[in-house]
């Protein structure tokens, strides 16, 4: 029994090392000289840590601009999505209105359609609104998500209707009931949806690639992709730049990982 346990741990450690190796290799390479990086056999740790690589990579492309854009877009889409979802989820969970089932079913069905199919008409719409290559294009289409509405509705619905009717009898308005009872009660679901949206927005690539066409508007992943195709970029700087993109989400995840894990475990669908 004991030897079986040890075998389980050995396998898990080997697996964990495989998962971590790319991250380790990224950071290790980011500290090497261009010459050392290309040496064979490769060195596991840099002989001399080249801190200057990080500064050079940061200055080689407008990464500060990319970072600001990524932060603005992630926060704006996440806040917007939470507000629109909280309001809509309340209507679906507690209000009585005509066509509720039909509307819910139609919206649920839209979730089956691959988002890639919608890129073309959405690009045309944004061109007509003269929003291409603005924050508007990066933010507005993502201000609502039926997935978030769907998840929140389940959470709101778990609060008994009797409580809602009692609150109404006591003179509380819908608005007060929503923000003082339902929202605090669904705090962990809301946090999870928010975190998944920040991660998704931060890492999204195809849409920002298509709707931005100047350096000024690029987000980090698009900026990194452009940087990688610049001539003369060496692997240490490319790895340092990749770390810029990855690090904020990894730090956030490590700090808040119980919410992220709980969110995925409860919904079971990709954010």
């Amino acid at each position, binding site marked *: 029994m004991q030897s079986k346990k040890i075998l389980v741990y050995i396998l898990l450690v080997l697996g964990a090392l495989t998962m971590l190796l790319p991250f380790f290799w990224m950071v290790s390479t980011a500290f090497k000289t261009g010459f050392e990086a290309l040496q*064979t056999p490769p060195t596991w740790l840099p002989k001399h840590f080249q801190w200057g690589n990080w500064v050079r990579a940061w200055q080689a492309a407008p990464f500060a601009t990319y970072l600001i854009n990524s932060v603005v877009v992630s926060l704006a889409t996440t806040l917007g999505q939470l507000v*629109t979802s909280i309001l*809509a989820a309340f209507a679906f969970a507690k209000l009585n209105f005509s066509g509720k089932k039909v*509307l819910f079913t139609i919206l649920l069905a839209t979730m*089956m359609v*691959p988002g890639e199919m919608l890129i073309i008409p959405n690009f045309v719409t944004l061109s007509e609104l003269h929003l291409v290559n603005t924050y508007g294009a990066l933010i507005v*289409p993502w201000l609502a998500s039926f997935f978030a509405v769907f998840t929140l509705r389940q959470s709101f619905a778990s609060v008994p209707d009797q409580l809602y009717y009692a609150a109404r009898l006591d003179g509380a308005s819908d608005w007060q009931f929503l923000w003082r009872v339902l929202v605090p009660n669904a705090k962990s679901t809301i946090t999870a949806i928010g975190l998944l949206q920040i991660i998704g927005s931060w890492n999204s690539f195809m849409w920002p690639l298509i709707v931005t066409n100047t350096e000024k508007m690029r987000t980090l992943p698009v900026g990194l*992709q452009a940087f990688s195709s610049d001539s003369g970029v060496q692997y240490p700087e490319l790895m340092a730049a990749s770390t810029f993109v990855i690090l904020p989400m990894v730090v956030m995840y490590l700090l808040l990982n119980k919410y992220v894990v709980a969110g995925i475990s409860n919904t079971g669908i990709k954010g």
Partner: protein
Amino acid sequence: MMNNTKPTWRDNLKALGYLLPMLIIVGMFSLYPIIKSLAMSFYTDYNFFTNQVNAIGFDNFKTLWQDDNFHLAVWNTIVFVVGVVPVEIILSLAIASLLNQINRLAGLFRTLYFMPFVTSVVAISMVWRWIYNKDAGLLNYLLGFVGVHPIDWLNDPHYAMPALIILAIWKGLGFNILLFLVALNNVDQRLYDAAMLDGANSWQRFWHVTLPMISPMTFLVTVNAVIGSFKVFDEIFALFGGQPGPGHSTLTVVYYLYQMFYEQNKYGLAAASGVVLFLMILVVTLFQLWWSKKHVHY
């Protein structure tokens, strides 16, 4: 106040107020474009700048039907899905089962295995691009210990797709492990006790208790993984530097859509390829639903 009464116009107005912000955005950027892209797939002569449709018909679908590149894209997409999904499911279930057997450090392992999920596909693909480097890459160095000659992963058309598949499996494992862990935690311990009393060994318990009990989650994970894999794009773009692999060896349907739309401005053709993608996903998902009716134990 009762929920089954007929809503008054005031009820409807109030609900509309709460729904409106979501409805405007979802209507404009999800509902309308679904209909619009269906329509666009029939635009055979379309001027984007004036938004003028001069001719409609089935020509886009005919073009796709005859385009060798599109055939290749469909084929590559299927190869990718078949290459990624089964391995990912088996590996993640195996790791989740191992994690489920330990108490100490289980949380730490779970955190580590999940890390690739939160990382940018583009950034981590840059790292893999470096790992796959023929002369100085880490992978060829490690393979050298078991006598494998250096492979030109990213420039040899035979190895580009395997390279893409390995990256995708690595990236997707953590998410599926997490879902399998939830399912494994929910299996009633008494079932295992009963099986043990009947003399079932650990393999028999896994096969006859665990697998049937977690089959709804296996189904969910599979459907998720299949749909996600059908839409692969970011990894390809980043791994091969804005090219669909050497000799189009990793040209997939979404990459084809991107090329037609963004590089060649053939909006109708791009929309038609999107419709084909949707139909492919729909058919495969319906097939899985049908199959699950017979094999999933709810």
